[in-house]
């Protein structure tokens, strides 16, 4: 077989790979749609507020890891303290910040140093001091040496005293009823060990007193594309995996866990960037190894608004980290691959992640390389290549439109027709450079695996106040 034939076969391989991944995505899309429609049918405001009124809720400890968050930490903590939930505590961890994060919190919330006996469930970097607000008795701050995001969550977890813990990013805002909706699942079903909420882009939202009043399309194309990505991820894929009992990730920006389950698996692992994904993998492994009934679910309704990177540079850095994290987690839990002991997680979800998430960077990158080589050596079938590219782009847009169609059924949706059109154009724009840049970043990440294992806190954010759009 000559090199031309090999390239031909590679071309066919790419086409079939594309068809497979597209069919899989379509199946996930439909399954996710079904899951969300069932959820939408089941949920009503009566059930949630009645749930709170009857006091059958579970108290929650909200864990907020923070590094250099001086710009947005005050607004973020204030919005958490304003949550409409009867019993909760907020534990912020300042993970060796090099800016004024700790000072901002001390000044804003009148924090004073206190002695506190913390249960050391998970070992962490040295805790320098523990502070408590004199104005808000349910607000605590752990000031500690830098140890990474997972270490910061663990430090907060050691202080948590409620049966349900919720980890949330310092630059995020929770929807009013999000906690009630999510914790209701724990109260109703003892086998639920983790619940993943839906994350939506805060960029462009109009705020009123720390609450999202309405949402508008963000200003930059980088942000707009992420709106589509988040919709695709949360309204289709995660809902679908949750439906089949094989959800492998709960976003670190908003995840809720049964404290006892996290204690049993030993907290969050500090050796990876994707600590949020890793802890879910470990929960699956532990529960299945122990043969215990359990559920890890994603719900489309408890919504958390988070600030997404607004510059391509920050986005590249974030995606580099995510891809490294994915590979680290898959490698650490490689024994789950095609292992029937782990049920659908081992037989479907983990193989999907290996071949269509981790492997996609190679195949897609290889595809572009093939086009370049074929063009240089003059055997590129331009008509064929263009048609294939058009098909891939249109299919991607179709998936985005499916997710945005689901989004229109939410009460808090993009109301202006102009925003919808902008987001429709963004679905095209995604393929006009940004996707390729991010693909490159994912390829680069593979070669940085050893060098940058577990590094975190590298993102630069504009801060909630600055990045949120008009505040009323």
């Amino acid at each position, binding site marked *: 077989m000559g090199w031309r034939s090999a390239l031909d076969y590679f071309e066919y391989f790419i086409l079939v790979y594309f068809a497979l991944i597209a069919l899989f995505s379509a199946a996930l899309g*439909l399954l996710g749609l079904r899951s969300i429609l069932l959820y939408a049918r089941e949920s009503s405001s009566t059930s949630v507020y009645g749930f709170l009124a009857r006091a059958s809720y579970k108290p929650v400890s909200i864990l907020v890891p923070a590094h250099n968050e001086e710009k947005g930490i005050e607004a973020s903590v204030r919005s958490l303290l304003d949550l409409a939930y009867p019993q909760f505590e907020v534990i912020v961890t300042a993970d060796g910040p090099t800016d004024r994060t700790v000072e901002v919190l001390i000044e804003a919330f009148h924090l004073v140093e206190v002695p506190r006996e913390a249960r050391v469930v998970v070992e962490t970097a040295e805790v320098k001091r523990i502070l408590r607000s004199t104005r808000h008795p349910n607000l605590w701050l752990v000031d500690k040496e830098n140890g990474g995001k997972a270490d910061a969550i663990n430090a907060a977890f050691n202080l948590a005293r409620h049966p349900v813990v919720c980890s949330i990013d310092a630059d995020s805002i929770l929807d009013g009823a999000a906690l009630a909706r999510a914790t209701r699942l724990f109260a109703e079903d003892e086998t639920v060990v983790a619940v993943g909420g839906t994350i939506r882009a805060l960029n462009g939202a109009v705020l009123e007193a720390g609450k999202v009043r309405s949402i508008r399309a963000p200003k930059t194309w980088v942000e707009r594309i992420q709106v589509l990505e988040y919709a695709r991820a949360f309204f289709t894929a995660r809902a679908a995996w949750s439906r089949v009992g094989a959800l492998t990730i709960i976003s670190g920006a908003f995840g809720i866990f049964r404290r006892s389950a996290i204690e049993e698996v030993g907290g969050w692992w500090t050796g990876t960037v994707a600590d949020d994904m890793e802890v879910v993998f470990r929960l699956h492994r532990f529960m299945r190894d122990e043969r215990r009934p359990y559920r890890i679910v994603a719900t489309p309704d408890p919504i958390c608004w988070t600030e997404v990177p607004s510059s391509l540079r920050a986005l590249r850095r974030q995606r580099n980290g995510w891809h490294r994290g994915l590979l680290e987690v898959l490698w650490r839990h490689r024994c789950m691959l095609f292992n029937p002991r782990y049920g659908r997680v081992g037989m479907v979800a983990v193989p999907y992640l290996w071949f269509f998430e981790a492997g996609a960077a190679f195949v897609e990158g290889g595809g572009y390389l093939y086009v370049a080589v074929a063009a240089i050596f003059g055997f590129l079938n331009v008509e064929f290549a263009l048609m294939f590219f058009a098909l891939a782009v249109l299919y991607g847009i*179709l998936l985005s439109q499916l997710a945005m169609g689901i989004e229109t059924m939410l009460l808090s949706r993009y109301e202006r027709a102009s925003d919808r059109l902008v987001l429709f154009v963004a679905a095209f724009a995604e393929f006009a450079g940004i996707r390729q840049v991010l693909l490159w970043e994912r390829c680069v990440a593979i070669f940085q695996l050893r060098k940058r294992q577990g590094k975190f806190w590298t993102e630069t954010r504009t801060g909630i106040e600055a990045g949120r759009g008009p505040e009323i």
Partner: protein
Amino acid sequence: MWRRFGEAAYAAVMVVVFTIQAGALVLVAAVVLVASRGQASNTLRFVLASAVSLTALVVMLLTAYTLGYQWLSSRREHRRTAEMNRWTERWADVVVGGSPPPKPQKVRGAALEALVAVKEQLREPERSRAQDLLQHFGVTAHLLGVAGSRRHSTRRRYDALDLLFRAGSPVGFATYADLSHDPERLIRELTARAWARSLASVRDPVVLDSQARRFTREMSDSDLPQGAIHEALLETAEAAPLVLALLLEDATGDVLAAALDVAGRLQCVKMVDLVPAHLESDDVDVVCSGWRALTGMGASPQAAVVLLPGALESEEEEIRSQAVRFAALLPPSEALELLTPRLGDKSWWVRRSAAWALLNSGAKGRRLLDDASGHHPDPFARRIALQVLLESGEISAGEAMNRAVVS
């Protein structure tokens, strides 16, 4: 929160779109495989071109549908809100203002929801007037008919049960009994809640007794999760003493644990003597719920007190923790003797409960905790005592820091 309409149409559109797309993709893949054997390159070109055109078409279709849905749903919500406001005013005029009710007509849609919402907000005697209107217009019968019929869509049945729950009318027990065996889990949950609230509004003691027995029988046989049973039992309100007494006598497992918890939460002191029998159960959840119930009721029957030393030494952390909380109800002289050693328990939760219990055991308990924060031989006991004193506001942060440094 989600809009509760249009989802079926969207699902249908999506199924059509993706069926077409999947067909096209399978065809593309098949032709590619044929082409890999050096055949049919023209066919491949044709199939690819068709797939591209088809995908472009469905993208446009979907986008148009989404924009159309957005426009239509906004208009519909606007109209619905206006209708609700109009009907709410009208019903309020009838029930509170004494205006004559609308002429006999079907009360459905916004009119029905508004009437239920008005009833929910009122107290007696206006509430009874709203109930009469529900009866007069056949609203409850209509809702029961929708909930009980499998011919209606599941969503309509959910909505009907939700409205029945909110209406809380003392009728429909036969339908509820049938629905408590429905194959849909959510129908069973909503039925339990609606049934419980209906029981709460029954005034005739004979009817209440027979219906409460039926309700508890069905709850005991149901496979609802403990949390759902707990929620339903809380809804029984005035009927709770009867319902809970029946469950405490006959139920087991999750249902019994839920009944005990609710008895404690509603402070049903009348059934305090029914609780101690469950404190020796083999089911740890039941035992914990039992101690919690007594603590909630604020009662310390002798039958429970004699079991307390054993519970405080239990191997189950949760039982010790609940028993410690209960111990705070005993006379200070007895309580302090039992609680003080628990400050040094191996479990953080038990230590914490013990410290809070001491704090709540009167002046002597508070003094003891104060003393423990500085001089207890066990450093864990010292720290938890200090923490609880701080959290309760008994000492300032500065004082707590000083004591921590000194001790």
